Every structure is written in structure tokens, then in C-alpha cells.
């Protein structure tokens, strides 16, 4: 360690004084509301805390009816995608000190709102399933592992990171306009297998993605890449799939 005299202190020091956070949340209760409405809340919290912590503070101390999905709280499970100040984000990886104390929170777009920030994820997962997102291998490797070079492994590393949070798909203007479009997340899932040297199902997937609802709907707006909380180069993955179809080459 190079520093001993002035050891680094975490900049998200939880002992720092609290700040007031103002939340404006789009609410919808199917039992009582005909359409969504805005509701405002104020909470006090540490600037090092997450947007998710703000939502929990509201739910646990002010209004137990506020409804949102969440689980891991550190950006790996993909449950808490929402529109925060106009952009698709995971509530659990955005800290108040970075995003500000004025928060406008809405459900992700393009999927039907069921209650508050909870949307119907079924169409999204159906699109994921439609690209055959599993290894298709016709060889018999016996009792041994298949070999794969580090270069071959690197070829699809980026798209293995996907957590199916839907931030990309629900930021895509094409998807908003046409929910038949398979969407960036499903293409990312297909890419992960198409470019896996162990997989034999590339052609079947490319045929699926060459259909009307497939990759060529993409107009390269880059919204998906900007929205991805895992830093996946989504647009590039889509382009690689397009090229594989056009040049018939993986």
C-alpha cells in the first residue's frame, strides 16, 4: 500500500450529514385509478445512498402502497429498472450524490404498467425466449470439457454480462413504436450464442433475427448502449448480428 499517512476515506461516507431528497413518482393503482398520476414525497438520507434506498424510505416509513420490484440492490439481478429523471436506470446503482436530490421516477416505457413502477415483463421475456437463448451443440464432448481458446471466449464476453433488466429494450424508440420488434436485449442474448465457438445454432437464430421483427428494425439510435447498466456495447452487438446475416458469416 502506498498511502499510510492519509489513508483514503470512502467518498460515500455514511456519516456525512443527511440531505433532503424530493421524489416525484408516477403512481398507478389498477383498483382505483383510471390513469397514472404524480405523487410527491420528501425523505432525508445520506448522499451516499442509492435511489433504491429513497424508494424504500418512502415505502417503509410513509406509504406502504408504493410498489416497485427489487432484489439484489447492487446491479446484478436486473429487477429495478425504471426511468429516473428521464433516463432508464437501475435504482440500486445510482447514488443520490451523483444524480441529485430532485428525482422524477416513472416506470420503464413500452411495457404495460401494472401498478406504480411495476410493468408487465412477460412480453420482454417472451422475446428473449424467441431467439433460442441456450447452447445448441451437436457434438458429443463425452466426459470432458469442450476446449475454447481465450480469443474465442473473448469474442462473446461482452454479451454474457446481460442481466435482462430491459433498460435497453425499453429505451428503444423502435420498440416503443412497434412492440413486435424483438428488441435489443433479445439480440444481445442471441449474440452471446451466435458468436460462441461451441454453438451450432447460429443459422437458426440468424434466420429468426432476419425476419420482419428482427435486427433490421434497428435504426442505430444508440439509446440501448447508453441505457445499459452493465456497459454492454449493445448497438455494436446488433451491428455484428446484422453483418453476420448480410455476409452470411459468423
Amino acid at each position, binding site marked *: *500500500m*502506498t*498511502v*499510510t499517512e492519509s*489513508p*483514503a*476515506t*470512502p*467518498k*460515500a*461516507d*455514511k*456519516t456525512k450529514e443527511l440531505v433532503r431528497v424530493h421524489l416525484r413518482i408516477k403512481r398507478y*393503482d389498477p*383498483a382505483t385509478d383510471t390513469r397514472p398520476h404524480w405523487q410527491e414525497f420528501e425523505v432525508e438520507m445520506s448522499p*451516499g445512498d442509492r435511489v433504491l434506498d429513497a424508494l424504500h424510505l418512502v*415505502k*417503509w*416509513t410513509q406509504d*406502504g*402502497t408504493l*410498489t*416497485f420490484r427489487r*432484489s*439484489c*440492490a*447492487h*446491479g*446484478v*439481478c*436486473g*429487477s429495478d429498472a425504471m426511468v429516473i429523471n428521464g433516463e432508464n436506470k437501475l435504482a440500486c*446503482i445510482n*447514488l443520490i450524490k451523483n444524480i441529485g436530490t430532485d428525482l422524477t421516477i416513472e416506470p420503464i416505457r413500452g411495457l404495460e404498467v*401494472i*401498478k*406504480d413502477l*411495476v410493468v408487465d*415483463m412477460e412480453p420482454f421475456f417472451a422475446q428473449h425466449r424467441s431467439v433460442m437463448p*441456450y447452447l445448441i*451443440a451437436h457434438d458429443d*464432448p463425452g*466426459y*470432458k*470439457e*469442450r*476446449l*475454447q*481458446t*481465450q480469443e474465442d*471466449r473473448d469474442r*462473446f*464476453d461482452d454479451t*454474457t*454480462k446481460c*442481466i*435482462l433488466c430491459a433498460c435497453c429494450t425499453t429505451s428503444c424508440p423502435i420498440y416503443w413504436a412497434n412492440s413486435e420488434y424483438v428488441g435489443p436485449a433479445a439480440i444481445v442474448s442471441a449474440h452471446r*450464442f451466435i458468436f*460462441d465457438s461451441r*454453438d451450432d445454432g447460429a443459422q437458426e437464430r440468424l434466420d429468426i433475427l432476419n425476419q420482419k421483427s428482427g435486427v433490421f428494425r434497428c435504426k442505430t439510435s444508440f439509446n440501448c448502449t447508453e441505457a445499459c447498466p452493465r456497459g454492454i456495447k449493445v448497438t455494436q452487438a446488433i451491428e455484428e448480428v446484422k453483418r453476420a446475416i448480410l455476409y452470411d458469416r459468423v
Partner: protein
Amino acid sequence: MNVHYHSYDAVVVGAGGAGLRAAIELAGEARTAVLTKLYPTRSHTGAAQGGMCAALANVEEDYWEWHAFDTVKGGDYLGDQDAIDIMCREAIDAVIDLEHFGLPFSRTPQGRIDQRRFGGHTRNHGEAPVRRSCYAADRTGHMILHTLYQRCLAKEVNFFNEFQVFDVLFEGEGANRRAAGVVAYEMATGDLHVFVSKGVLFATGGYGKMFKISSNAHTLTGDGPGVLFKAGIPMEDLEFYQFHPTGIYGFGILLSEAARGEGGILRNSDGERFMERVAPTVKDLAPRDMVSRAIHAEIKAGRGAGPKSDYVYLDLTHLPPEQIDSKLPDITDFVRTYLGIEPKKDPIPIQPTAHYAMGGIPTNVEGEVIVDDQNTVLPGLYAAGECACVSVHGANRLGTNSLLDIVVFGRRGGKAMAEYVKNVGHPDVPKGAEAKVRERIEQLKAGTGSEKVGEIRTTLQESMTLDASVVRTNESLTDARKTVEELKAQYANIKIDDKGEVFNYDLTEAMELGHLLDLAHGLVVGAQARTESRGAHWRDDYPTRNDQNWMKHTLAHLEQDGSIRLSYKQVVAGNYQPMERKY
């Protein structure tokens, strides 16, 4: 409230690694429903980072027997050695299976599955750290979860997503009970679903949300153990709860042991590598219980860092930046996100974080749930993964052995259940089997109580982290027990805000809190009774292991009046005789 009835051969509750691995065995063999309160890919298996150990010997000499020895010793001789042998032997096939399912393991230059060092895993019975952990960068759990889910999709497994199980059903009474299904609550509608089935496998994960500083997901609330505890099934070894040494300070978010496997070093406020004093041979790669206690001791001795002197450092600054980027990309990103520091330049503030339940639903090596100290099986009832206690982890789990546990025993449980359901008739479940659950829901919604779920949970978490974590005493456990018992009384008088049908998480959180309270109760009562120090259970007032009196598993029973009764069960001996645990 609408009620729906379903009939299956097999029901799997939970869709993390263990549940999905069981489902793969059941698919095509038995009519199977997999119920999860989340979506499968949201399960906390996805948060596991470092790897999965198996003596593949891809990069250096290794044998499954060495792995078994390390696991027995790491568990401070409380693990059942028959089960440990099975796990370490089958580990090799389990890894190969995952590779065949498509798991993108990191590779050696020769294209084989790469392996790296991990805490407590050694060559030749403790000589030196060994490279045994198979991994996919630092997102091995994510890759296992997704690969198993992908495999389930290929096998057209029948998922009921966002269905939360509130009760288990039996046919018969007392000692003649057999499993007959579950009652589940559908989040999207608020409807109840009665699943009548010959076999039920619980794979609901851990219950780390009883602690304040925790690496666990908000949803890890011990639902399976909680439901079974209430139904008269004892819980095994609840007092053995693991605190992972390296949680991100203030958040508890996990920083994998792989960071130390790759060469990371723990330092106190003086910059001293204090693990050299504690474990001269394996140093920073000592098992988690020892490292967490060492951190606790440094802080207590005034060598903690920060304004409150309450953390130490995980130092990665000496590692080549490209090694950090390729081997530890996710966890270094967590550090940047939550602490705003660059781990290539600055050491990372860390503190122990509640991480893993060694204890849980008692099972044998086939995943069958056992209900007493004679290992009596309750037919048709199975458990696997963190919610279960086989017991392979004994008093302290070694890093990576949880991912191994879920795939080995998920597979065994699924296989055993597939066989079982072929040979038994359909259970008889009377109409109205959901009555108890319905009553509870109506009672909660009508509740005129005054106690808030969030407040009770916060008090529980603070008390458990303060009094029942890394270091315990009779005094601290008395305090914790008193708090838990008071909170249980308050819990009887809770109210919820949301009276609606659709996505009522206010209601499910209230149900989950009930599980956490019961399991915390079992934990503190078991811990108070156990007047020795073993593995993760450290008593300052009884600082040595006492094999004569305490080499036995605890079985906690939740009585009708809400109290806890303890009984004990023998440890299965094997090749390795207990000895002093030095590293």
C-alpha cells in the same frame, strides 16, 4: 380472493441455482412446476462472484480428496463427511456438466477451464493454496444462474414467475405425514394457488436479511425454512452463520474472495498485513470465519481505519491493472459506484458482512428432508441449496463451495424426487387447503394493529448485527434473544398500508418478516446454548472448540407457543479426525 387448483408430480420452490438444477433433472421425467417469487434470473445465485471449486487439476496437481479434507477442516469438523465426500467427488462432473450446458468459463492458454486460488483451499492437506476454483471472470454465479435458466428454457420447464409460497401441504398426520403440495400467492393478481403434488423441493436460498450489514438481496428472507419451521420441521445448525470478511464498507455488498485469490491483501490502519500474524501459511486466503474475526480484532485493538476506526482495507493497488480488468471487473466497478474510489489507486474500505447460512432445512445426501435426530425422512419433501443443511459446510463454509453445493445437491435432489414421484400415488388434499393462508392474508389486511413491518425489521437487523454476528457472548445473545422475543410479540400486532390485490409487496414483506423473526429466534437460542467456539460461531466467553460436548448438530424446533426447543444430532464421521485448525 380467487383460488386456483393445480395438480403436478413435482413442485420446485425457488429458481436460483439449486431449484433450476433440480428442474433440469425433473424436466421430461415428471410433470413439474417451478415456482419463484421473482423471475428466475433475479435469484441471488447471480450475485456469487469468485467461482466453483472442483479438483479438475487443469492447472496444477489436485485431487478431490484434498478438496474434501479442506472442506471438513474449513467447516471445523461439524460437516458430515459422507456428504462432503460426495460433493467433492461429484464436483468434477458438475463443472463439466455446466460447461456442456454452455457456461462460458474463463479459459487457460490451452483452452481448458481456468482455475484460481480461493480461501481455505489447499494442496496436500494444508501445504499451500491451490488453484481449484473454476470461474467466469468475477461473475461466476451470474453465469451459472443464466446457464441453468437457459438450459431450463431449452427443456421447456414450466415456470410460475412471481408466485410466492406461503404454506406447505401434507397428507396424513404426525409421523405419517407425506408432502402433498404448497399454497402460493400470485403477485400479479393476489389470487391463491393450491399446487397438489407428490413431491415438493424447497430451494429458496438464505435469510441474510435478518442482519443489518448483509451481502444478501432484499428478498433473502428464509421463506422455505420459515414455512417448514412453522409446519413442525426442525432447522439444523442455525447458529452457524457466515460473515464474509470483505463487504463494501457501509453497504455490505460482496467483494469476492477472488480479489485475494488474485493477490489482494488485507491491511489495517497502519498498513500492516495483519493476516500474516493470524494465518502464517495461507495468510489472506485463510477461511472466512478466521479472516472476519481477525478484522474484528484489528478494529477492537484500535487499528481500524476511517473516522470511526471501524473498517480495514482490501488492497489491490499492487496488482497489474490489466489483471484487475480481466479477472475482477465487476467488483472493482462496485467499488467505483458505491465508494467513489479507484481500486487500482486506493485501497478499499471493507468490513465483514452477513453472507451465508450454513444451517437450514436438514436433509440427507439425496436432498430428502429429515425431521429428527434419527434421520427420519419425511416422504416427498426435499430441499437443496442454501436453504438446506446437508451438512457439507459444517460450522463454516469455504468460498466457492456454495455454488458447488447448489449444483451437486440440486441435481441429486431433483433426481431423487423424479424417482420418488414415479413410485407413489397422487396425494389426497382436502378442498379448502388454502384456508389457513387465506385467513392470514385477510387478517393482515383487516389488521387494526399499530406496529410497522419496516420498524420491526430494522430493529431485528440492528440487534442481530450488534449481538449475534462475528463475535458473541452469553450477554450479547441474551440481549439479542430478548429483542427477538419482544419483536415477535410486536409482530402479532402489525398493520400494513396496502390492502390491494395486485402486486402487494407490503403484504409479502410482512409474511417474510415472520420467517426472519422465527429463524433469528432459532439462531440466537441455538447460539446461546452452544458454549463453545467452532467455525463461524465464536463465543468470547468460550473461546475453544469442545469436541467432547459439542461435536453435534443442533436441531431447533419451533413450538406451538412460539418458543424454541433444541435437540441434537450426531455428526457423520469419516476419514478425517478432528484436529486443531491452523492455517
